[in-house]
């Protein structure tokens, strides 16, 4: 690799979560050095991570300390080291295609019957809080195929749907699959602001709306609420409201729904149905925030395994140096 193939480089301090690097152009390879672990000589600390296009999605080559010396051993993320395989690595993101290329199906063992269902799985890579997944199980067919923001990820054990449903799915989920859709809201849809499926609407003044995927709306934007009969609260259907942003998952609208029928998330018996949705339609303030913005980008998500070394984004407070490059030519078998 000649130095002049480097298209971009940088430095960041890890916060112990996945790090998204937006790149200025297409990329063929990327490398990170963990300056913190290089300075030490702690057994099982990784020091360098390398990715290039021919590697499987999420894989990488790892240099690490196999003993408490400066000697270096090498492995891959899939093979892992110290008895831990599938160490998450680099995830190439092209947000113009992210919705057309979901991740591979990963087995789910079961899911709880709660307004924030928890799904157990032996492989949570590359999930981090705020990532978006699509779950399909035998029992939760009312939420099958819908996209959700997740939180509370227990590595290689379980993840939770972050945004609270109006009603629990209606049963304990059996075996199924989950798919990785996007690392965050910015990547989820190339155009901003975009529609969202509704998890809940309160009967209150003002009404508070919760979305399955974090909404990303800003105060002052105008939205239309679409509520089909299967979701109750049909009095809300078609109404326009001005958004007041509350949290990543919730916003209030200037509509008094106190006397409206209660909102419910349809149960499995209601399938097939059209879910309730919120459609951004314009701005109610002086600043144009609701224009359709193409926020597409190409980049790399550097995974972190939380408090465990072995992934390119390191652990909390690690200082990471990275370079990304483009090859003049690529030879494949």
């Amino acid at each position: 690799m000649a130095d002049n193939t480097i298209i971009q480089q940088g430095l960041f301090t890890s916060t112990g979560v996945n790090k998204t690097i937006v790149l200025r152009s297409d990329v063929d390879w990327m490398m990170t050095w963990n300056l913190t672990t290089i300075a030490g000589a702690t057994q099982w600390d990784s020091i360098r991570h390398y990715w290039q296009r021919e590697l499987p999605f999420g894989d990488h080559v790892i240099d690490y300390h196999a003993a408490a010396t400066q000697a270096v051993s090498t492995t891959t993320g899939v093979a892992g080291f110290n008895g831990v395989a599938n160490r998450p690595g680099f995830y190439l993101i092209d947000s113009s295609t992210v919705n057309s290329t979901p991740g591979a199906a990963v087995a789910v063992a079961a899911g709880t019957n709660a307004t924030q269902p928890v799904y157990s799985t032996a492989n949570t890579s590359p999930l981090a809080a705020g990532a978006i997944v699509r779950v399909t199980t035998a029992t939760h067919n009312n939420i099958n195929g819908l996209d959700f923001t997740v939180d509370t990820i227990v590595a290689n054990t379980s993840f939770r749907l972050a945004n609270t449903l109006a009603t629990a799915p209606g049963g304990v989920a059996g075996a199924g699959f989950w798919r990785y859709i996007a690392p965050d809201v910015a990547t989820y849809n190339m155009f901003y602001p975009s529609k969202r499926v509704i998890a809940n609407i309160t009967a209150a003044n003002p009404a508070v709306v919760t979305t399955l995927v974090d909404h990303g709306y800003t105060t002052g934007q105008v939205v239309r609420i679409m509520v089909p009969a299967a979701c109750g609260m049909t009095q809300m259907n078609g109404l326009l409201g001005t958004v007041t942003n509350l949290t990543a998952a919730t916003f209030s609208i200037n509509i008094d729904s106190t006397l409206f029928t209660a909102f419910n998330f349809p149960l499995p018996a209601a399938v097939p149905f059209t879910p309730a949705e919120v459609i951004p339609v314009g701005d109610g303030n002086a600043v144009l925030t609701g224009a359709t913005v193409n926020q597409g980008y190409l980049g790399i998500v550097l995974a972190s395994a939380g408090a465990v070394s072995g992934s390119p984004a390191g652990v909390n407070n690690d200082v990471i140096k990275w370079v990304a490059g483009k090859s003049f030519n690529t030879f494949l078998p």
Partner: protein
Amino acid sequence: MVLNECASRLGVSLRQTEDQLTRDMLAATASFINCLGGINGDNPTEITRADVDGVVRELLNNNAYTIMDNIEGENKFGTAPVRDAYFALCSTKLTGNLDAVGGFIHKNQYPAPMNALRSEWGAIGNLRFLVSSIGSVVPNSSALMADVYNIFCVGMEAFAAIEQDGYSAQFIYRPPIYDGPLALNASVGYKFAEVPRITNDLWVINLRSTLV
């Protein structure tokens, strides 16, 4: 000669890129209705006449204008009059399913087939279907993990491509002399600055369906 061919290909690329951006904007921002009338056990189901009628009623209720005028019936075997219609933009992979919908009229059964557009497949009720190989598909997103096909049903002036800063597209040509001292390579390309935008959210509905 080569330059003419390049310009021709770039023109196709430009308009196809425009189409893709508009497609992605509609997929991200338009309201949707799932097909519910089918029997494939999925959510959404395959498209049926009831689903077409439902989306047409919704557009009519929202005061959307139809885009195409009706085609008057004529005394010709195997033809049928075609209603005034909204456009339905979808993937070529739906053509087999469209054929099976009650009341489908293939464009060669129009009384005046020359009125059909090149990309048109046929009509059902007040929808005329335009198909494309780059039609919108969301993989593995139905309840049974099947691919979901977005059918954008649009009324007149429901969306637009808005040119930014007063210019639409520019064709760029740099002759070989700018390439290097040996003047070996010329460059041609295009750039454009425009944004697709829904002008009235009530006049476009994404009818989502799976295959039979």
